[in-house]
């Protein structure tokens, strides 16, 4: 892969991603849902504060409260990542795309780099907006960006959304079908991962799932529990999942016929 080829593929993928409407609506739904729910939960927390037990008041992490919308907002990020990849297959465009860029590593790199960069921008804007608007709702109980761990948590929220999108791209590259990809990823991140984390016998394993590990970074005040990694360690575990998904996608893309 030469630099010139990579640059051309990036430019081409940018034209592709900006010229279809699914990019706009998936990313705006991700932002609106994350920010909206974050504000709602923050406002509710402020109202409930006086009736909360003392331990809960002391443990209140205003930053993490404002990120309450991430669980739902990440689903739109998953849809974004899945559609960016699977639309190539469902439309047959993949045969035109790979005839234009026959080196499959270059093709996959270009697509994930462009979509990942876009997800990073939207993820960061969403994370910071969620934080500031959520804190505004929390009123007297709010945290400031300069408080310990807060900036790390807010930047981490943007990274978390980005990694979720890129992970979905890797999985979608392996599966090719939009229905299959969404049918696996959406229930997994919305339900199964949380169930595994809640059930006692699986909770220790569930900690190493991409979303459970990655979301640790969004806690400005790390909880006193026995989780064996810190905020950045958790994000590192999530990054390993992303690398594994992309590597699997690349291995299959490279050896499969283009259809």
């Amino acid at each position, binding site marked *: 892969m030469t630099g010139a080829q990579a640059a051309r*593929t990036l430019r*081409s993928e940018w034209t592709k991603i900006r010229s279809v409407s699914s990019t706009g609506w998936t990313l705006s739904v991700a932002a609106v849902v994350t920010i909206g729910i974050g504000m709602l939960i923050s406002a509710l927390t402020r109202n409930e504060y006086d009736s909360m037990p003392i331990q809960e008041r002391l443990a209140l992490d205003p930053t993490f409260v404002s990120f309450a919308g991430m669980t739902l907002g990440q689903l739109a990020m998953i849809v974004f990542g899945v559609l960016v990849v699977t639309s190539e297959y469902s439309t047959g465009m993949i045969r035109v795309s790979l005839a234009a860029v026959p080196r499959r590593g270059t093709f996959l790199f270009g697509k994930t780099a462009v979509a990942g960069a876009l997800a990073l921008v939207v993820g960061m804007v969403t994370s910071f907006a969620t934080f500031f608007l959520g804190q505004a709702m929390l009123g007297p109980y709010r945290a400031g960006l300069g408080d310990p761990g807060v900036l790390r948590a807010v930047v981490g929220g943007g990274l978390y959304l980005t990694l979720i999108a890129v992970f979905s791209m890797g999985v979608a590259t392996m599966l090719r079908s939009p229905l299959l990809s969404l049918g696996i990823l959406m229930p997994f991140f919305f339900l199964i991962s949380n169930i595994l984390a809640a059930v006692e016998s699986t909770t220790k394993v569930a900690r190493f799932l991409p979303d459970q590990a990655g979301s640790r970074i969004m806690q400005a005040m790390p909880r006193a529990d026995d989780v064996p990694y810190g905020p950045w360690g958790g994000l590192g575990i999530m990054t390993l999942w992303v690398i594994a998904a992309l590597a699997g996608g690349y291995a299959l893309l490279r050896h499969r016929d283009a259809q």
Partner: protein
Amino acid sequence: MIELDGLTKRYGEKPAVDGLTCTVRPGIVTGFLGPNGAGKSTTMRMILGLDHPTAGEVRIDGRRYDQLTDPLTYVGALLDAKAMHGGRSAYNHLLCLAQSNGIPRARVGEVLETVGLMAVARQKAKGFSYGMSQRLGIAAALLGDPRILMFDEPVNGLDPEGIHWIRNLMKSLAAQGRTVFVSSHLMSEMAQTADHLVVIGQGRLLADTSMAEFVRRHARSYVRIRSPQRERLLDALHEAGITVTEAADGALEAEGGKAEQVGELAAGHGIVLHELSPRQASLEEAFMRLTAGSVEYHAQSEAAPPDRGSDRRGRTA
């Protein structure tokens, strides 16, 4: 120039393309002919590096497709007109392809002009008729001003005006010295456009010959004769050195003879004729004879659903 060398593609046990070796040369239109499911589309996908050959290889001007820098400037192909994102405009579809191969943006407008889609350039491709999609696919093939062009069943689904346009386009591209490789399952279509023929059946090469040679060999002309004085007529024709074969219904077929000659001969011998007609065996018949042994799904048989080796886009003859 496209060189196929022992090109083979197997799905499981069954070969879709079986040891195909041939060369597609520049400056002429080469027709790639075969019945549905013969392996034409699979071969074309392998030429573009989309499908991996089980054995053998394809070389484009001496190199493998994925070794080409900016491949769209070497090979332009239309495989499937509907293979594009329907939500993207015609202009952006071509722009993303141009950018991936370092082709200047101005070229997008030029090819849209060539195929007559300038007026709908900003419209989404999903609103396009089949003919318009076909034209957009051809615009994409022309984008890199390639020396090699490949079209898979380009006239399928087109109206007569569109068919006429594509035929002329292919001929003019070949006349510019380009390599034009076009597939079809219709001999009549090839007879109109191709200078050279590569015929395959069940993935195997059946003929690799110039169109003129194919016509000379297969399009035999003869005179059909019926007479109540058959034996006398046979003697007279034999004396005149005309080769005669017998048709199934008892009529005689005089090979290569002219109707006038046969008529005068009969009159000279006082032989009564009931029929005297010049005939020409069609190329379609010749093609069907050639591929008869290799047609995968005969109409009368209970056809199994076509598998991955066949044209899967519902094309029918």
